[in-house]
């Protein structure tokens, strides 16, 4: 209340009283105002602000302050100019001042306290922005002293800013730690930025460590944190020891003093021996031709005689401890968020592998046949999507058409492959593997001949672009969510077909005992053909899905085929849940290793494959093996 009264009083009295002072100030600093320099203008601006020259300062910053012909300072308006002090119109030419950006920012800072009390919320917000952009110690008082902000959002912002500034500038350590604690579980970048400077360290070396310093940690030379060479360099920089002689310098010195096939009495031919080089250098040093070099023993002694430490610039340990604690807690929370994000990525990858492997698992489970051309079916599906897209302009419609079209094309290809090749190689799994490989290289080359080696785009409709996210760290692209939904859809479809339909019953019968199934009137060949078509068709759908986020090339299948095999092998044959578990394991593993070893997907894949080879040792028949006595045989 009292503060409000004073404010009113100041406002009322501001005019005449301040004008007087302002006049003096402007007159005293006239030269500095017209020719400002970033280094010296600070006190002037402060004086003007104190004298109530807010309007002058604002005009100056906006490049509307000028010098009239008679030397008076004038504020320029659209219509004309008026005296900066009295407000009287100024005739004649006014030359506007053009302060540089450094000066302008100083002016803006000086204007802040007044702006914080401005009735216009936009001005107050701008003032807070200005502080946040270039915080300094002086503004802390302004923030604290300014009248309470009626706008709750702005009030909260101001409070936050005040606490951020308190962390950095409050003279009282207790107030600073309290400010740090007041942020609690906040993970804001501004909070982090306020904490980081507190923990800035510098590395010092000396015979003893400074007694009053806030030591972050003491270092032992020769460890990973401080290699001996670095430690010695620190001592050299501190002027405590002479520099050591590097091999290159020694060589240069010897070369410079080579005379008549010898250096310092040592024949040049012998200088391929490092010991002889040292001898030659010592001889030169004894003659005073080169500076004496510190020996290794001297260097070690010097390192042992000195102590090394990282020292905080911030002297108060209580503050640095609080800051360190807050940062650690923040890192922990961010780690959790990143883990969640990684889990999402892993699920997404797993759903892709699942889609790619499900067809393979079906054919392998029912017929014991590995179809090496499966990857090429994926590729065919993707190219079908591309062709459909060139025919239908509407992206959504083309995707809706592409999915069944890809299914039909690849299912047909699968049936043809079955009838022409696989059926004739019945019960010869290894030859089937190789024959389908022949089909695979032929298909790949045909695709290359038709579509070229250039990658073809398969663009997703607009509603599939962008991403879904929770918080800053967790996000997943919409396409991947769609693929996950697609994978779940196929899982459900597969379960329904296998467990609820007559076809599924027949397929399961053929899987368990083809001979018996045949004698019950089920044609194993027909079932095999249908399942092969189904498996291939799903590969086509997977191809469209993969094409939406990866480039469509004739080698698209190669990238997924080995992972698909792994999924089937790890998951176990003949069980959809096994395939799901295999896909989850492989996707999760790949992402997990990538996190442990970031930026190195090659290493991730290597380790994943090694893991699978070891995994097979313990579960030779996959996570969910075929059961029964037959499996034990």
């Amino acid at each position, binding site marked *: 209340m009292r503060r409000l009264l004073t404010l009113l009083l100041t406002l009322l009295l501001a005019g005449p009283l301040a004008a007087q002072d302002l006049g003096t100030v402007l007159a005293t600093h006239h030269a500095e105002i017209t020719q400002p320099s970033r280094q010296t203008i600070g006190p002037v601006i402060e004086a003007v602000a104190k004298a109530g020259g807010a309007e002058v300062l604002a005009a100056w910053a906006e490049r509307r302050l000028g010098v009239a012909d008679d030397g008076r300072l004038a504020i320029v308006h659209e219509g004309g100019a008026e005296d900066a002090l009295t407000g009287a119109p100024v005739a004649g030419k006014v030359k506007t001042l053009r302060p540089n950006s450094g000066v302008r920012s100083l002016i803006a800072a000086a204007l802040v306290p007044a702006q914080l009390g401005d009735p216009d919320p936009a001005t107050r917000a701008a003032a807070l922005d200005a502080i946040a952009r270039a915080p300094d110690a002086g503004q802390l008082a302004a923030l604290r002293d300014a009248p309470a902000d009626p706008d709750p959002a702005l009030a909260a912002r101001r409070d936050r800013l005040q606490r951020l500034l308190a962390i950095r500038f409050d003279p009282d350590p207790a107030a600073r730690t309290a400010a740090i604690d007041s942020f609690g579980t906040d993970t804001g970048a501004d909070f982090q930025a306020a904490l980081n400077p507190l923990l800035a360290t510098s590395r010092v070396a000396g015979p003893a460590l400074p007694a009053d310093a806030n030591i972050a940690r003491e270092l032992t030379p020769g460890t990973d944190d401080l290699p001996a060479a670095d430690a010695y360099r620190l001592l050299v920089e501190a002027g405590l020891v002479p520099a050591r002689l590097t091999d290159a310098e020694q060589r240069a010195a*010897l070369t410079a003093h080579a005379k008549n096939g010898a*250096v310092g009495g040592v024949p040049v031919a012998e200088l391929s021996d490092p010991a002889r080089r040292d001898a030659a250098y010592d001889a030169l040093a004894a003659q005073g031709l080169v500076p004496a070099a510190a020996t290794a023993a001297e260097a070690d002694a010097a390192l042992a005689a000195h102590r090394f430490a990282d020292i905080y610039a911030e002297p108060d340990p209580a503050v640095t401890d609080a800051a360190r604690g807050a940062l650690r807690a923040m890192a922990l929370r961010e780690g959790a968020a990143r883990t969640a994000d990684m889990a999402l990525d892993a699920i997404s990858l797993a759903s892709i592998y699942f889609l790619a492997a499900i067809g393979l698992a079906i054919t392998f489970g029912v017929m014991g046949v590995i179809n090496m051309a499966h990857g090429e079916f994926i590729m065919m599906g993707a190219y079908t999507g591309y062709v459909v897209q060139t025919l239908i302009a509407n992206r959504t419609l083309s995707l809706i058409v592409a999915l069944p079209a890809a299914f039909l094309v690849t299912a047909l290809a699968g049936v043809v492959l079955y009838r022409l090749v696989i059926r004739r190689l019945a019960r*010869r799994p290894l030859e089937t593997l190789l024959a389908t490989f022949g089909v695979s290289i032929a298909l790949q*080359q045909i695709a290359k001949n038709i579509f070229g080696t250039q990658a073809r785009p398969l663009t997703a409709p607009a509603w599939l672009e962008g991403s879904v996210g929770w918080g800053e760290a967790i996000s997943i692209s919409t396409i991947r969510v769609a693929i996950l939904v697609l994978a779940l859809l196929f899982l459900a479809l597969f379960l329904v077909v296998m467990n609820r339909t007559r076809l599924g019953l027949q397929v399961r019968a053929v899987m368990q005992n083809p001979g018996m199934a045949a004698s019950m009137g089920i044609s194993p060949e027909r079932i095999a053909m249908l399942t092969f078509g189904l498996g291939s068709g799903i590969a086509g759908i997977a191809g469209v899905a993969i094409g939406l986020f990866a480039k469509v090339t004739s080698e698209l299948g190669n990238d997924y085929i*080995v992972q698909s095999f792994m999924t089937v092998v790890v998951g176990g044959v003949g069980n959809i849940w096994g395939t799901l578990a295999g896909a989850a394991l492989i996707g999760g593993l790949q992402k997990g290793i990538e996190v442990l070893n970031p930026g190195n997907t090659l290493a991730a894949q290597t380790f994943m494959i090694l893991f699978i080879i070891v995994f097979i*040792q313990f579960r*030779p028949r996959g996570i969910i093996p075929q059961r029964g006595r037959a499996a034990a045989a």
Partner: protein
Amino acid sequence: MLIRRHPALLTALAILALFTLTVTLMSEAYGSGALATSTVKLLGKTLCLALAALAMDLVWGYAGILSLGHMAFFALGGYMIGQWLMYARTAEIVGRTLAAAPIPPTPAELRDGIAGQIFGVVGSADLPWSWSLAGSLPAQLVLVLAVPGLLALGFGWLAFRSRVNGVYLSILTQAMTLALALWLFQNDAGFRGNNGLSGLQNIPGQAHVPQSVIAVRFLWGSAFALACGFLLATWITGGKFGSVIRAIRDDETRVRFLGYPVETFKLAVFTLSAMICAVAGALYYPQAGIINPAEMMPIASIYLAVWVAIGGRGRIYGAVIGAIAVSLLSSWFTGGRAPDLRLGGYTVHWVDWWQVLLGLGFVAVTLFVPRGLSSIWDATAGLRHPARRGADLGPDAGALQEREAEA
């Protein structure tokens, strides 16, 4: 003794000797010059591939293990010899450069210079530990056999011990070679990442010998190695050992109940075959001049299986014929020397269509000539297998099956 029991061996060796002699007499270095040096190299490389195919036949055709990772051993052999070739050659160059300086280099300076030359391309200047023996030819020659041998031993032990069979094993071997290739692709694996090792055609200490002479010498070496491979394979498969491994191929369980340690036999054949492959690789890459991890991507190993299948597995000469025929045809077609085929409005460029022809041809061979090209020999020699018209051969699925028995 061996030749008396296997008359085909003498024929094969005679053909090989005749071939080598003919090529020598037509080479630029020792003969008429009718064959360009690049052709001599191609023929020498083809002999190495034939040796690799022979090794593949040993493990697949005889022991029934379809390894889809054998080219990993081939390439590893190449890497091991390549380390010495590259290191010793760089040492010569660096040594010459540093010798021109006023002060002779220390061993450490020499090593740093070599390391900088070799690894500068991947942004490193340190010699990785895996290169510590690279300066010594005998050591690297031992490694040519030891590294692939130990890898095969370790992998085989893991796989066979857990009774991984058939298609599963094939996929696992494929994973092995992929893992190795991906690892080598990394720059910090210590083998120059995807740059691989290059300049291998320059033999250290032989800078004065022209490439035309080196090519013929490597041809001799490859032919000699192939001949040794022939003898070794015939000796192994001819006796009781061959009988045991073929029995394992046909019915593993039964062999086990006869008291034979099946896993040990498989491991022995797998390792031996890996080592033969490594020797072939060590002879191949100095003729090719460059090796990089792409050479051991799974597709290369599958091609090896394709050659053996086309040639006819379970026959030593079958594998060799397959490798020679397919790889020579392949380089003829892809080299752009095959005449284009005009089909109405479309011209078939064989560079584009050879892969299609190979793929479909391979399917056709698998379907219609399952015993490969060598079965044509058998047919002319009057060797016939009983036509069983689909009748059951083996006791149950997984054991000896119809046509697979005929090989």
